[in-house]
């Protein structure tokens, strides 16, 4: 595998945030946003190409899970939590 570019990693990060935001469930949404931000920050200074590639392939797998599960979260919905502001439908 060739070396990862900055654009590739940033694109992956964007995908994670986008899919985490797709969760209908408040707690899951916030959890995945928090974990995405934290883990990308955590690995920000990794320079070792081999480790980077491993992280990248694992992240792609996780992204698949996130994509599927955020869809499921949109299919099986529940009332909003008391801390969640309601958005009016016609905005």
């Amino acid at each position, binding site marked *: 595998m060739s070396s990862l570019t900055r654009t590739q990693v940033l694109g992956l990060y964007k995908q994670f945030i986008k899919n985490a935001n797709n969760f209908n469930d408040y707690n899951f949404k916030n959890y995945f946003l928090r974990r995405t931000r934290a883990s990308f920050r955590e690995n920000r200074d990794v320079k070792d190409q081999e480790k980077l590639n491993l992280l990248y392939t694992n992240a792609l797998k996780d992204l698949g899970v996130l994509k599927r599960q955020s869809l499921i979260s949109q299919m099986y919905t529940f009332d909003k939590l008391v801390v969640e*502001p309601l958005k009016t439908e016609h905005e």
Partner: protein
Amino acid sequence: MLRQGITGLTRVSRLLRVGANSRPALSGGIRLYSKAASNAALKFADDAALETHTDTEAAAREQTVTRAAATSSPSEVIGSSTSALQNAYAENTGFGTRPIYLDMQATTPTDPRVLDTMLKFYTGLYGNPHSNTHAYGWETNKEVENARKNVANVINADPKEIIFTSGATESNNMVLKGVPRFYKRSKKHIITTRTEHKCVLEAARAMVNEGFDVTFLNVDNEGLVNLKELEEAIRPDTCLVSVMAVNNEIGVMQPLKEIGSICKKHKVYFHTDAAQAYGKVPIDVNEMNIDLLSVSSHKIYGPKGAGAVFVRRRPRVRLDPIFSGGGQERGLRSGTLPPPLVAGFGEAARLVVQENDADIAHIKRLSEKLTKGLLSIPDTSLNGSAEHRYPGCVNVSFAYVEGESLLMAMRDIALSSGSACTSASLEPSYVLHAIGKDDALAHSSIRFGIGRFTTEEEVEYVVDAISKRVKFLRELSPLWEMVQEGIDLNSIEWSGH
């Protein structure tokens, strides 16, 4: 295929038309109507919403009605009390209605990553993991063994030492009944504590009926077992010591390593009920000399209905199985394993290891925030040891407030005054009694559970809501008034009627 489907549909609609024609009064216009309707139905099927919404509020309302009907007091009393408490509810318009979930000791939400692992077992991987004649069996068996490895990994055990069960209750029963039954010829004594979970206490009680002696150890007012007392309680015919790792009500962590070394010294088997501890506090079965350990899947964001028991192989711990059957799980727990649940459990176990640092830091931070916020309300106290505890379980007593009425005033937060098993009864918690709390304080305590998915915003909301409502309920309470006037409540002689 598609063509067949369409012809099938027309056939159905023709049948419908025949049906409509057979009703003389409705014939005529109906034919046209039914055609339009079937077209509409077809169209609807194309852009039907995939979303299925669960209206949780309706269920809550129904529950309230049932409960109101069950209580002997007439409905008007309930009506008036609700109106009196009206300003105690946060009637925030523009926000949702579903309560914040803070009862993580009862159960935890299933992690989406766990569900993702489980789904393929409900869609294609349906083989029996014990079938070894075909690929369907092999593929599920592979996943089950992978799960076993992940479950063992959390407590540094060997995968062969993990027996899958239906949950911690089954695991506890298996151990508490199985080990003494196996050694019943020479050993007749079991030791456990007063603060155990109901399933351990009841299983031990059942063994009394079978002729075993059971010692229920007391705990100090921090909730900890006295090691000297434990050592003195061990007799030559003691076969099993069972002490829970983390208490389900007060979150107190027992000194497992010390207990393990005492048990090893006296050559007694050491069992720990780690339902609340597994994956949350560090446990190493070898370092702590644990011989048997019970685990539940749904306390670690896994599916409900799965659990495991760790049974040491070297030196071998033997037990009589409760279930007789096909000899699955080393013959200790016969019956086909549920691969979806087991695989979900395995994934949950993998995740608690992977997310360990992040989870601990997050839960600790929120727990400190919550504890600080709640204890800043006057006349509140934390139950159980402040040091030896799992931070995700915070049990606080609010003096001069009735716990149940606080819970009633807290429709927007899902909390419990104790374990879910006993929350149906109004009697005060036996665990709080065991740590020396009187009835009044035991009645006024509430357990808060924080988990991986709890957010900071939720904790802030809870602290704010509780502070306001405790203040409000105290203003209603005559006891609080008396305390404010400087009357010592213990000096009053109440006359009973």
